[in-house]
């Protein structure tokens, strides 16, 4: 323990140098750090959202909506097929993940079963008495879920990119969740509004043959839908309703561009749009066939407006007017350009920190670190004299190394992470305390300085390892099961445990041994 081969001294020096080198960029401004040449470490600590300000959102993709939509389409095909073959049926409808239909006439069941099988060959079709069931398989569900989540991530990314947020993180979590992290945004509400909108746009004809009042009374004609008008000024429950055809004339998928602009006549904010070729053809056909009839522009189940078609629109472009503000047309155009979400999103969790609080937290954390450090440094010097000062140098080195490792790994430093560093400052000296106390004991037992130091180090070593490994176990579990900022705490604590073991066992020992060899003291100042 008192022998230090040259290669070991060299290794300790190299590790310390690297620690300082990797920590160094944190002590210069961000701009300067960016300009550093590639061959020197230039990465700064990656600050968490709670320190730099920003929003963390946990979203859930309502996968059931996608499945419902698919089942709905199965119901429609089943109805059409059964009617086409003149098969009598009743109780046709969808459940959680299947659709069912009852065929009362026994002689038609075989034929009906065949038809149902052909609707979706991947699904499981079965018959029980007079009831035929088409159930989606687990694989179909998983496929639809995966693709819905992936598409959602893609759409969210496009929408966020359009708002100009820098460095957003968007990633899948678990089966049907998405984490969105937006550093340093000024208006989280707007981004949330943009992310949360499904933005499903459709053009549907208004049903003018049936009365809205009849439908409001609960008798909605088949093939039609009762939809509310999008009127922000209307109190809940007071919206006007309008009856539209279920059949979608043209959908938002066929849009190629949408821009906020102003109406040529009354200068109201509107959104102008352009269809692709298929959309333009469909739109031209519908408008040609329905001149002087109203059609509805439906966004997320609400009718934005229902203008009357004045003349066939063949150019494939048009505009959406409503009682919009300029901001609303900007947002709507953005949403239409980015595309619709495959399913609605729900915000399960939100944590937003303003830039002011983040800066305050950093400042407070720095002060706490410095004051804690000074207090411990002074105490160690008083308690252990020369040896205490060695431990203090090791402690300072330890902080450099924690910062260096954090910068190198690009781990995220959070406010609890700063707390972890402060805690490490207190605990890091523990290994040295153990060793010094042990050396004192050995001295009292009448050993020579060299032999006391040798015994002190070797006997304290197993205790240090046991004690630190148990804390490390707790820290690693905290990292594995903790979430968000708490993980940041686990990260700095774990790094701190490892670096403090290195500095105590190697660095202070190197100081002590070098001093011992050069001075050859007859008694130790402990």
């Amino acid at each position, binding site marked *: 323990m008192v022998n230090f081969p040259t290669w070991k001294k060299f290794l300790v020096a190299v590790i310390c140098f690297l620690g300082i080198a990797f920590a160094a960029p944190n002590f210069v401004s961000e701009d300067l750090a960016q300009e550093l040449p590639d061959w020197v470490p230039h990465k700064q600590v990656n600050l968490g959202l709670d320190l730099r300000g920003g929003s963390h959102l946990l979203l859930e993709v309502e996968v059931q909506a996608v499945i419902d939509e698919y089942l709905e389409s199965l119901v429609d095909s089943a109805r059409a097929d059964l009617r086409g073959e003149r098969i009598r049926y009743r109780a046709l409808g969808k459940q959680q993940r299947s659709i069912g239909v009852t065929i009362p006439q026994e002689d038609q069941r075989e034929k009906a079963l065949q038809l149902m099988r052909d609707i979706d060959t991947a699904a499981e079709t079965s018959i029980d008495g007079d009831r035929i069931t088409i159930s989606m398989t687990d694989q179909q569900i998983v496929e639809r879920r995966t693709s819905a989540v992936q598409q959602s991530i893609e759409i969210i990314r496009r929408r966020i990119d359009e708002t100009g947020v820098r460095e957003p993180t968007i990633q899948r979590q678990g089966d049907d969740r998405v984490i969105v992290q937006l550093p340093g945004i000024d208006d989280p509400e707007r981004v949330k509004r943009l992310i949360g909108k499904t933005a499903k746009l459709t053009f549907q004809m208004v049903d003018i043959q049936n009365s809205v009042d009849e439908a409001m009374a609960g008798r909605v004609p088949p093939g039609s839908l009762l939809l509310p008008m999008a009127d922000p000024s209307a109190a809940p429950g007071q919206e006007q309703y309008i009856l539209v055809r279920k059949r979608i004339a043209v959908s938002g998928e066929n849009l190629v561009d949408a821009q906020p602009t102003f109406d040529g006549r009354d200068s109201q904010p509107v959104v102008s749009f352009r269809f692709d070729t298929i959309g333009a053809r469909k739109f031209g056909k519908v408008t040609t066939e329905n001149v002087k009839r109203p059609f509805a522009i439906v966004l997320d189940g609400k009718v934005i407006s229902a203008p009357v078609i004045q003349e066939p629109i063949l150019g494939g472009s048009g505009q959406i007017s409503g009682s919009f503000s300029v901001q609303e047309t900007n947002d709507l155009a953005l949403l239409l350009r980015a595309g619709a979400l495959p399913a609605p999103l729900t915000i399960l969790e939100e944590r937003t920190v303003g830039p002011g609080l983040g800066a305050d937290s950093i400042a407070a954390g720095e002060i706490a670190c410095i004051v804690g450090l000074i207090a411990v440094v002074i105490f160690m010097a008083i308690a252990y004299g020369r040896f205490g000062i060695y431990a203090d140098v090791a402690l300072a080195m330890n902080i450099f190394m924690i910062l260096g490792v954090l910068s190198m790994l690009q781990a995220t430093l959070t*406010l*609890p992470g700063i707390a972890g560093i402060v805690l490490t400052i207190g605990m890091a000296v523990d290994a040295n305390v153990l060793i010094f106390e042990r050396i004192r*004991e050995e001295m009292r037992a009448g050993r020579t300085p060299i032999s006391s130091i040798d015994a002190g180090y070797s006997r304290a070593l197993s205790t240090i390892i046991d004690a630190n490994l148990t804390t490390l176990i707790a820290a690693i579990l905290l990292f594995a099961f903790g979430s968000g900022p708490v993980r940041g705490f686990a990260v700095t604590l774990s790094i701190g445990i490892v670096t403090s073991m290195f500095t105590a066992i190697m660095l202070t020992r190197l100081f002590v041994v070098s001093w011992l060899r050069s001075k050859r003291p007859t008694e130790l100042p402990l």
Partner: protein
Amino acid sequence: MKPLNLIPADVDIGFIIKRKLFFVFSALMIVTSIALVTTKGLNFGIDFKGGILIEIRNQEGPANISDMRGKLSSLGLGDVSLQEFGEPTDVLIRIQRQPGGDEAQQQAVNTVKSALGDKVDYRRTEFVGPQVSAELLENGIFAVSLAMLAILVYIWFRFEWQFGVGAVIALLHDVTATIGIFALLDFEFNLSTVAAVLTIAGYSINDTVVVYDRVRENLRKYKTMPLGELLNLSINNTLSRTIITSFTTLLALLALFFLGGEVIRDFSFAMIWGIVVGTYSSICVAVPLLLYFGLDDKARGNLAGDDTDEGAEPQPGAS
């Protein structure tokens, strides 16, 4: 510079003699903690209960809390609590979980924001839905339980089983006492509290292991010494280290408590309390407990079996 010996070298305090006193004190603390948690309950933060937390700073000087309370309680959002937070201009608003799904929570945030107007800065907005809060609580309980189990296994592996059981009882003691003080003082119990509890668990074990290590060493060294005397000797041997390490850790944590800002004050408090209780339990609970676990001649013999300590003398009869 003359080093200072805070704890005299020949310290000899009769910890083991007074063990009954410590046990009674600890039992009282544990019973009170459990009683408080079951009757009064914990003040769960939004992490575990769901709900909304908004921290604002008034742009025009000190905030008028009673005025704001009036405005917010008329919104029909149920339980709304306001509290000055660090500075007179800063207010922390907590709103109970809204009935209905996750969308209802989002609605409530918007309602509050429009009621407060634009004369305030939003320093922090957190909202946790019912689904996530339930999961976070589950994960928290799981992490703490697993940590304790892992530590038990490690100690078992490194020492005799008696030590493992003693260490985990001391650990449960510290964790219960920490949760108890949160119930007593009505401090918010949230994710950072769980982090604090886990760290306390780590620290408590760390402290206990150091004393146990010395017990193990002394068992090898003094084979005929009565167990009680030997345990007391081991505590006193390591007392200086135990006190100094706890003291430096407390120094750092006190700096965090007073200077680290409002957001982590409860967290720092939990840690400070945990360090104090953890230090006490290592000395006064974990070690005296070893007397009762039949750390008998056989166990002592086993320990002597892997003996490498030169201080040990051959002992007839030890296997």
